[in-house]
Structure formats: C-alpha cells, structure tokens
C-alpha cells in the first residue's frame, strides 16, 4: 500500500469539502477500500475518515418509514429492533453477507459503494479491465467468467454488483440521501447503481462532491411476507452467485404489492418493475410465478462459464416467492 495522508472529518460539510479534492477518498469501515488499496487497485492520495461523523442513527421517519444513517454499521442495522420488525428482508440480506467481523466494520454508505469482485478487476497482473483502466479491454468476457453478469452487461464490462444489502434495499424501494456542495439530493435505489455501458469505471450516480448521509426506507406492509434467498458456493461467508429479494404484501392469498430484485447477475440490483406489477392482483400460483420469472430474466445472455445462472435464477425466483408468500 502506498503512503498517503489521513484526515478525520468532523462535520458533513468538512467531509464534502475535503472529499471533493482530487486524490481524496472517503473511508468508512474500510473493509473494501483497504483491500483494494493493498492490491493496488485503489490508490487514493488522501483518506477522509467519515466513520466518526454523527450519521449512525437508525430512527423512524415522520409518517412511517425509517432512516438509516450512512455510518451505521451493517451489524447494527441487521440487529436493530425496528429493522427486524418492519424490514426483516434487510436484516436477512445483511446477515447473509460477509462475516460477523466484517459486518461489525462495514457501513451502510460503504456497502452501497462496494465495488465488484470480478477477479480481473481485483488483480493488477491483468492489464485488461475497463473498470480499473478505462479503454484497456475486458479480460473477463473471454476469460474465467463463472461469477459474472448475465443481464445488463456491455461489451466493455460483465462485472456484477456484489452487495446483498443493495438487493434488499432495491426491493424495499429505498432512497439514498446524499449531500453535496449544492445541498441535498435524494436518489431512488433503482437509479443509484448504473449499468456499465461504455463507462464501466463509474459504478454509481453519486457525484464527486457528494457524500451519502442516509438511506430512507418507506413505510410498507412487506414484513410478514418477505424473503432473501442467497445461492453461493459454500454455506456461509461467500458472495452470491444468484440472490433474490422477494417482498410481498398479501391479502386473502392475493398479492397487493410486490418487490422482486435479483442480485449477483448484473452491474446493479436487477429490478424489473413490470414483473413486480405482474404479480399484483393475482394469487401466487405456479403459472404467475413462472411468468414473472420469465419477465425478470428476459434478455439474459450467458457467457462461456455462467450459463447455469439463468436456470438457477429462475428457480431461485420461484423459491423465494413461494417462501415469501408462505407457500412452502
């Protein structure tokens, strides 16, 4: 790791000012950034420590809903009484990710900014990675691409977003609250992460002078009928090959509202609004589930080594919906 400067921000305004300077990077829990710095993938000249900012509270919003401070640790969010009561899907997703030690460190803001786990992005021995070095090519497209994207990928990048938390936040229709020099901005979770297109080095729509300060969860009635299903190579402490966040509001066996998002398959949490709407007003039968799954996976294109993800996702969607709906 190259030497660098370190500064602890004492106020949000302070952090935004320092963070906007070239070569600066925010550090929260550090679990991803320090790893990337050790590998020479991230090379900030100055770290702005935002972990001590007063942004760790989890508190109800007026009119229902919940605000989670950006510096709340992943374990504190997963353990929080209100989160477990009202948004158990979020607790489940957080507890499915990383290890207890890492969850004790990682922040909500940092998790939103988590970078891909593509082997070629992580290993500087490979020259070609458009995400790491724009214009250098993509070694994964014709390389070892078992963990890579089957949806929304581009010629330039087939990386996936690795976070579990982000998948649940998308299903719960969270809003990312950011602050910049020109004030506050509210970004719907759906628009926070972007598809790679021809600029895969940009993961999110966060501005260079902006700091994530909170995540707002709207009030909903998903708590009794939600499920986070994570499929991975070992039972714990591994990234998802495919994951599904399923959230349903049910009345008399009929779906009133639905959130359905896939993880591990694209550059962002994969949400197809039309598929969610196709569930509404129907009982959760096999035909409905099959049609919804087809709609979510429409346009899926496998690479050489990840074709298994498409039937896996199809079956994971069905299982997550059945568990969420109380059918199994």
């Amino acid at each position, binding site marked *: 790791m190259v030497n660098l400067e370190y500064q602890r921000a004492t106020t949000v305004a302070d952090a935004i000012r320092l963070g906007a300077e070239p070569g600066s990077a925010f550090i929260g829990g550090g679990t991803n950034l*320090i790893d990337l710095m050790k590998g020479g993938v991230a090379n900030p000249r100055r770290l702005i420590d935002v972990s001590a900012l007063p942004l760790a509270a989890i508190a109800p919003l007026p009119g229902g809903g919940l605000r989670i401070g950006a510096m709340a640790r992943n374990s504190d969010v997963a353990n929080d009484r209100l989160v477990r009561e009202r948004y158990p899907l979020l607790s*489940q997703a957080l507890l499915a990710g990383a290890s207890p030690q890492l969850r004790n460190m990682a922040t909500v803001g940092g998790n939103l900014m988590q970078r891909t786990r593509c082997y070629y992005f992580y290993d500087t021995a490979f020259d070609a990675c458009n995400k790491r070095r724009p214009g250098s090519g993509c070694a994964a497209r014709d390389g070892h691409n078992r963990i890579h994207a089957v949806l929304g990928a581009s010629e330039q990048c087939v990386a996936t977003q690795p976070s579990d938390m982000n998948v649940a936040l998308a299903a719960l229709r969270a809003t990312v609250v950011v602050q910049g020099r020109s004030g506050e901005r509210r970004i719907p979770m759906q628009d926070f992460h972007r598809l790679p297109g021809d600029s895969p080095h940009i993961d999110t729509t966060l501005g260079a002078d902006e700091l994530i300060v909170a995540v707002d969860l709207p009030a909903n009635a998903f708590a009794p009928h939600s499920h986070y299903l994570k499929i991975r190579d070992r039972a714990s402490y591994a990234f998802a090959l495919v994951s599904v966040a399923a959230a349903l509001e049910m009345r008399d066996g009929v779906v009133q509202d639905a959130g359905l998002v896939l993880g591990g398959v694209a550059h962002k949490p994969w949400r197809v609004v039309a598929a969610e709407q196709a569930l509404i007003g129907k009982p959760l039968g096999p035909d409905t589930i099959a049609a919804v799954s087809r709609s979510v996976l429409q346009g899926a294109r496998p690479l050489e080594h990840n074709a298994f993800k498409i039937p896996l996702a199809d079956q994971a969607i069905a299982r997550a919906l059945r568990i969420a709906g109380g059918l199994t």
Partner: protein
Amino acid sequence: MDDRDANNGISRRTVLQSASGSAALCAAGVTAQQAEPAMPAAPAEPSATVRSVALRINGRGYTLKLEPRVTLLDAIREQAGLYGTKKGCDRGQCGACTVLVNGRRINACLTLAVMHEGADITTIEGLGTPQALHPMQQAFVENDAFQCGYCTPGQICSAVAMLGEHRNGHPSAASTDLRAPMAALSDEEIRERMSGNLCRCGAYTNIVAAVRSVAAPSRS
C-alpha cells in the same frame, strides 16, 4: 497456544527475529526500539505523514509513531509487540487477525490503526494468561480445538465476542425468525456465527465443541 510468545525464554519468535525476521522489520522501517512501546520510537526514515497515535491495548496505553497506512494488525504486532494476533491472509478473508475493539470483533487487517485512536482494543493476550486462562482458552485446550494453532487466537477472540452477541439477542443467518426472541445456541448457529474464522487444519468439529462447552456447559 501462545505460551511460547508470552514466555521470556528462547521462543520461535526470538529465533525468527534474529534471522530473516529482523531484516524484514528493518525494511519496513521498524526498529527494535519501536517494538518496545515504552522506549522512544525513532523511525529509520522520517516520513512527513508519521504521526503519534495513542492506542489502548489490553488496558495499557501505547503511543505509537506510525504512518496512516499502517493497519491495526501491523501496529499491534510490529509496533506494540503483541504477536498473539496473527496475520493470515491480510485481506479480510480468514479471521486470523480478529481482535475486539470496544468489545466488538473486527478484522484488524482491514482497518487502519490511526482510525482507532482512543479505542479499547483487546487481543488474545488480554483475555487470559498462561497461568490464568480465559474460559474459552481453557475450552479450546480441553477440546483439542486446534492443530497447528495459527488461527486459534482469532478463533478465541471471535468466539468470546460471539457469545456476547448471542446473549444480547443478535440474530444470525441461521436464525429462522428474526422477529422472534433468540433461541439457544445450536451447533448450526455456532458454525454460522463462527464462519468468519477459517481453520486450514479443519479443526472445526472440536472448535464447535469448545464453543458449545462455554456457551452451554450442561450440554457437554
């Protein structure tokens, strides 16, 4: 266990340090004086970013001179001279470096020492001594919960914090209902909650038994 490190006699560490280990330490700008926190520290090559960082480790105050890029793990081992905490992968994948910061278990390899100014840090040396082992250390000995022992300090620190988390009602991915009160610690729960600590010798069965014996003595 770590008796060898704690004893003053000839140890594996002494031998290593007098040979190639000392070369590596010098290359990293760490002098023998820096390894002794009571002595004034003098970096071999002054760096503009070196700063004084006060850490509280196992109840004792340390004032270390270090660059911001120094991880908490390297500060604990190379500067505070506490070698019980182990460096395995150094990338947050194995848990060998697990220490407690303000009672919470974390990976010391993925955080910077400078970020923990004023924090209360507990390493394996702070849990017990060879003469008075912590109950978890005792349980690892009694259950033969290790083979090479390299992951053991991290396993024990992790297990001690894990029991506290369970006592405080924190759920895990093995908990079936997040909205129900916490059930007793099943073996499945122990395995899930200890999944951040890898053991390449594969001593998992006995590690689970050791943790279980401390969590619920009547079941063992």
